[in-house]
């Protein structure tokens, strides 16, 4: 189904309060609807990374072609994870169903499907836990909120586990910090043992494993894509930037999501990085092997996340760099902040990595002393603070900007002020969305955790509604026409979402705004920005 076939009135005609006479959720079998889920994974993807049960299957089919002993597999996996993750065990035990999380999930707000209330999504799994691992559940069954795992329940798990974007918004409001994202991660880990994944996740994982990035861009192609950007940049600024690749002995390794080299508007952000590095003259290299900042492994299993993430340290060691600079990406920074050091710091043993220091300002990034990896907005904010960039924010005067906090940098890191500081220094017009929709209370774009496919467009338009609604608010109040963010998935998802709900608003990465405001050494008289749109006051210039 295409976006324009879905009517807004239909999406908005929903009721969040289940009626008194509605059957209980345990007696309501899952109704798998097209456009609310992603396509099944293709077998070739699973084979690349040795995942179980590769076969052709389809979500809408009755038979999902599971292995014969699937129930045993799930139960063993369940038990194993209860023993290995305190979060999982605790979150199965202590929920009191107070309902504080119920109306906090963007997928529930947008769909009103009660099983998308985080509490109930977790109960889908908890009910099976009670039946199999608690005395009350074994004795009293349904009365104790317990039920057996059967084919229908498994399908229900799958359907709703892939309608959760692991954004952690519910965990902020939960009085015990129960984190649905963690339950989803482990739930998806279990479905993956049966070969139940979606292609939009399985394909990037397979690509990333072999070629180094989610999009499967091979080394020569990666280089030529950046060369294309060199030409574009030269056309706009008159300056020829010279990125280097896989260069041993560089001081810094730069890793960014491959979405940035692939499609607009991410490409302009990518050009922004290139312009920044060139102007600074920093000794930095790109890598075609560690050419992915994001980590779709996180959306399949902890082990797969570790396998994909390893490239960052292995490449840093091989090239002999002193530290790593990371681009604008959402879940990448959850992995880098909360998992990377724990999982893979062993790989950096014997490398030249040292505590990161900005070569331009001498600032020590002490908050990255263990992982040796710095976020680019931390880096750029420091440059601006020390006056190392010549900026003309009026070049962004045609942009009225608001900032969307991406779920993971906000709630799994706390990167809130750095991007705001950067934006406020490169733009004259910045407006915040309402407080209950930003910072730690930010909403998901609707396509996080691998749900940014084309076929689940209704799910994305529904899940993205709360964010779109907040953007619409600042658009109407302040005339905001640009939605800035620090996430490649945002940049992939938002253009479609904005087009649907708030068509007057465009989408940008933060470093596109930075590059547009930068006054470069040897630049020609600029008339257009990186998008080839006229700069303010240059609308009538000749070469537009």
């Amino acid at each position: 189904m295409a976006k324009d076939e879905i009517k807004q009135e239909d999406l908005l005609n929903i009721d969040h309060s289940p009626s008194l006479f509605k059957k209980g959720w345990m007696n309501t079998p899952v109704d798998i609807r097209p456009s609310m889920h992603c396509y099944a994974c293709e077998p070739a993807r699973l084979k690349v990374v040795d995942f179980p049960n590769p076969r052709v299957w389809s979500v809408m089919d009755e038979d999902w072609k599971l292995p014969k002993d699937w129930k045993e597999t799930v139960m063993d996996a369940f038990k194993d994870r209860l023993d290995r993750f305190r979060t999982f065990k605790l979150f199965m035990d202590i929920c009191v169903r107070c309902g504080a999380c119920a109306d906090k999930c963007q997928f529930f707000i947008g769909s009103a499907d009660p099983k998308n209330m985080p509490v109930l999504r977790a109960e889908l799994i908890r009910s099976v836990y009670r039946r199999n691992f608690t005395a009350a559940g074994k004795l009293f069954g349904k009365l104790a909120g317990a039920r057996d795992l059967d084919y229908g329940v498994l399908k229900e798990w799958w359907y709703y586990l892939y309608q959760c974007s692991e954004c952690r918004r519910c965990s902020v409001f939960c009085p015990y910090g129960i984190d649905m994202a963690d339950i989803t991660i482990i739930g998806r880990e279990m479905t993956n043992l049966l070969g139940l994944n979606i292609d939009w996740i399985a394909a990037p994982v397979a690509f990333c494993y072999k070629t180094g990035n989610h999009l499967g861009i091979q080394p020569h192609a990666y280089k030529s894509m950046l060369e294309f950007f060199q030409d574009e940049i030269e056309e706009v600024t008159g300056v020829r930037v010279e990125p280097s690749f896989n260069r041993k002995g560089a001081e810094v390794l730069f890793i960014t999501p491959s979405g940035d080299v692939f499609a607009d508007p991410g490409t302009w952000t990518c050009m922004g990085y290139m312009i920044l590095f060139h102007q600074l003259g920093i000794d930095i290299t790109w890598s075609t092997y560690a050419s992915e900042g994001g980590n779709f492994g996180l959306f399949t299993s902890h082990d797969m996340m570790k396998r994909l993430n390893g490239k960052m340290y292995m490449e840093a060691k091989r090239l002999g760099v002193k530290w790593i600079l990371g681009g604008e990406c959402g879940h990448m920074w959850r992995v880098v902040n909360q998992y990377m050091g724990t999982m893979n710091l062993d790989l950096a043993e014997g490398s030249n990595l040292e505590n990161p220091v900005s070569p331009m300002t001498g600032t020590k990034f002490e908050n990255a002393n263990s992982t040796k990896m710095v976020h680019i907005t931390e880096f750029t904010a420091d440059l601006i603070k020390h006056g190392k960039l010549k900026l003309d924010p009026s070049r962004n005067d045609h942009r009225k900007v608001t900032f969307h906090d991406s779920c993971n940098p906000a709630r799994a890191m706390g990167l809130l002020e750095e991007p705001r500081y950067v934006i406020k220094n490169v733009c004259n017009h910045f407006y915040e969305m309402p407080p209950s929709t930003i910072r730690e209370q930010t909403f998901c774009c609707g396509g996080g955790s691998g749900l940014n496919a084309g076929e689940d467009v209704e799910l994305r338009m529904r899940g993205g509604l709360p964010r779109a609604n907040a953007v619409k608010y600042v658009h109407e109040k302040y005339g905001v026409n640009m939605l800035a963010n620090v996430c490649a998935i945002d940049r992939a998802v938002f253009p479609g979402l904005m087009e649907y709900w708030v068509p007057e608003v465009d989408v940008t990465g933060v470093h596109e705004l930075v590059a547009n405001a930068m006054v470069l050494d040897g630049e020609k008289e600029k008339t257009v920005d990186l998008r080839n749109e006229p700069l303010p006051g240059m609308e009538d210039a000749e070469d537009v």
Partner: protein
Amino acid sequence: MNIIISLTVSFLAVFGLVVIAFVGVWGAHLEWLFGVVIPYLAVITFFIGIVYRVVQWAKCPVPFRIPSTCAQQKSLPWIKYGYAEKLDNPVNTFWVVCRMILEVLCFRSLFRNTRLEFGSGQEIKYKSAKWLWLGAIAFHYTFLIVLLRHLRFFTEPMPFFVKIIENVDGFFQMFLPTVYQSGFILGAAVTYLLLRRILDGKMRYISLPADYFPLFMILGLVTTGVLMRYVLKADIVSIKELTLGLVSFKPVVPEGISVIFYIHLFLVSVFFAYFPFSKLTHMAGVFLSPTRNLSNNTRIVRHINPWNNPVKFHTYQAYEDEFREKMKDAGLPVDKE
């Protein structure tokens, strides 16, 4: 679970408990069973159960440090990282402890609660909603006060703080016997929590018998307690003889204690025994929640995962072997010519 069944089952369960105690004491004269044996068993079950639960959780490793960060991280020195940030995004143990204190004593996360208002035509609002927080605070704190007040039955002489609590709690000395506000606020708070579950469509849909049962149970406790104190005027002297006998392990069952006391005591016993095996364990569990009790310092100090699984990586060498010719043609450096 259907609301009617849930309510009926859990109400009948509590009602059944009342009947059991009534018949047991009034009909069968099993005062020793209900006054001594069951309370002992219940308290033993409570302590063993809670310790078992906590040990089970504590034995489980914390492979990753995944605190929910609810404020700005500690970053560049000039980026504001004040008290509010330290509390909601702590970087060391001291501030984690502070965060936990705020969470456990003040229900900090619940205080953030908002309520969705979904109008037609893309009008979505999030209104402040402190009622749940207020209800929860009122409920838990009055429960605590009532519990502490009961120490007067288990101590001789009474500790000084029990007297202070009684004085404060009975501040409005308008009636005889002194009316303790806590019991009534507790009753009101439980009623609010119950009505909320029944009247709000979302709450009704997610609620299980396991949610109604403890609420009915506590309502039963409050009701029997209030009846005993203000209406039926149970024989306090004899009751204290019994309760003191229990704590000094020289149990006695004095004559003439009214059956309402045994009903109250039986409900308390069942409540204690039920506690460790139900959602009520959130009282202990909240302390162990890894999204709240860990600092966000994983970029500064490595967190160790005790079972860090060995995995297969795709090495650079394997990558270069696959793409070497293409890389050379594109002018990319290679390790092996």
